[in-house]
């Protein structure tokens, strides 16, 4: 794989690089941005913000709730045991079980969503430079550019002050 990228010391320079890449005709999906921390105060930091994660968490909760209810209902009804004169299926205590499994369901769904959608090595995704973490740089780059576009990209990436352009 090859890639061309620039390392920037501050968010404004990185933003400038992103803007120049866009001006050079690179679509957002091809621009790779890597930072050592969330960049909420720059425009590029707001990319890909939309997510189904909340709904999936709710779904996980629903599944957990059903499991909790089913577990309580099926097990208690399969062997009806009299304890202390309580009903065989007693709502108050079972609500506790249902609640805990609901929360467990949503927590697990959230984490599963995170792992599947953001962490598991996806397509491409090999462009990286340790300077991001070690030196706190912000990386902006394009993976697998066509050979003839490289000079243009290098120019765009090198424009902001303090930029360090690298090939990989």
């Amino acid at each position, binding site marked *: 794989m090859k890639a061309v990228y620039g390392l920037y010391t501050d968010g404004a320079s990185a933003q400038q690089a992103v803007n120049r890449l866009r001006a050079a005709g690179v679509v957002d999906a091809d621009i790779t941005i890597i930072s050592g921390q969330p960049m909420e105060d720059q425009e590029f930091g707001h990319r890909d913000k939309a997510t189904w994660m909340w709904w999936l968490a709710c779904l996980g909760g629903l599944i957990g709730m059903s499991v909790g209810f089913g577990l309580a209902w099926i097990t208690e009804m399969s062997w009806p*045991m*009299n*304890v*202390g*004169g*309580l009903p065989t299926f007693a709502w108050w205590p079972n609500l506790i079980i249902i609640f805990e499994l609901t929360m467990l369901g949503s927590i697990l769904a959230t984490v599963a969503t995170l792992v599947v959608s953001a962490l598991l090595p996806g397509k491409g995704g090999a462009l990286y430079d340790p300077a991001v973490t070690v030196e706190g740089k912000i990386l902006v780059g394009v993976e697998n550019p066509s050979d003839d576009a490289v000079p243009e990209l290098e120019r765009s990436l090198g424009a902001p002050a303090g930029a360090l352009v690298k090939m990989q």
Partner: protein
Amino acid sequence: MPQWGMAVDLDRCTGCGGCVVACHAENNISTVGDEQAAVGRAKHWLRIERYWEGDFPDVRLKFRPVMCQQCDNAPCEPVCPTYASHHTDDGLNAQVYNRCIGTRYCANACPYNARFFDFFNPSWDKPLQLQLNPDVSLREVGVMEKCTFCVQRIRAAGTQAKAEERDVADGEIQPACVQSCGARALVFGDLENPSSEVSRLSRSPRGSKLLEDTGAQPSVTYLSRLTQV
């Protein structure tokens, strides 16, 4: 379905302790020895509580045999996570030793402190083990145990009656404590049968339940001791 219950006539009880030893003999309750007894681990499924009232010379001593009260709404049952403690159809608080993992929660929940714990594997100096009753299982370390109303005798009588195609007669079943009591302070039987002696005694105006306000609905009725002087 019978509902087993007991009546304890405190006017008859003389506190002799015969029932206590009878219970040990019938139910394979091990003696724990002096050192363990000293730390409060003696196991007496049935104990005779005794309470002083007043001061010399106007002093009285009351006896009160306390065993598992086989409550209808037994607080010990719902707290058990494994159903080791649960309720049978004939009104007993069953304690399934093999199902017990020893949380001791039931013992905390029991208002009567009628439950006992095996802190060590029970042992008998040979050949004392020959006295063991084969109808009653031995308990392992880490298990709760308690008065069962001598369930082995109840089951044996039930089997016998079934084989003879009849109902169990009133007084046919006697737990070991009832059987040993010379003064006949203890009466056992079916509370559902209105003509049984125990249900007659349970309706006595002298009758009351122990710690009635805990809501456990015990199956043991205490008939108060009278005073006439």
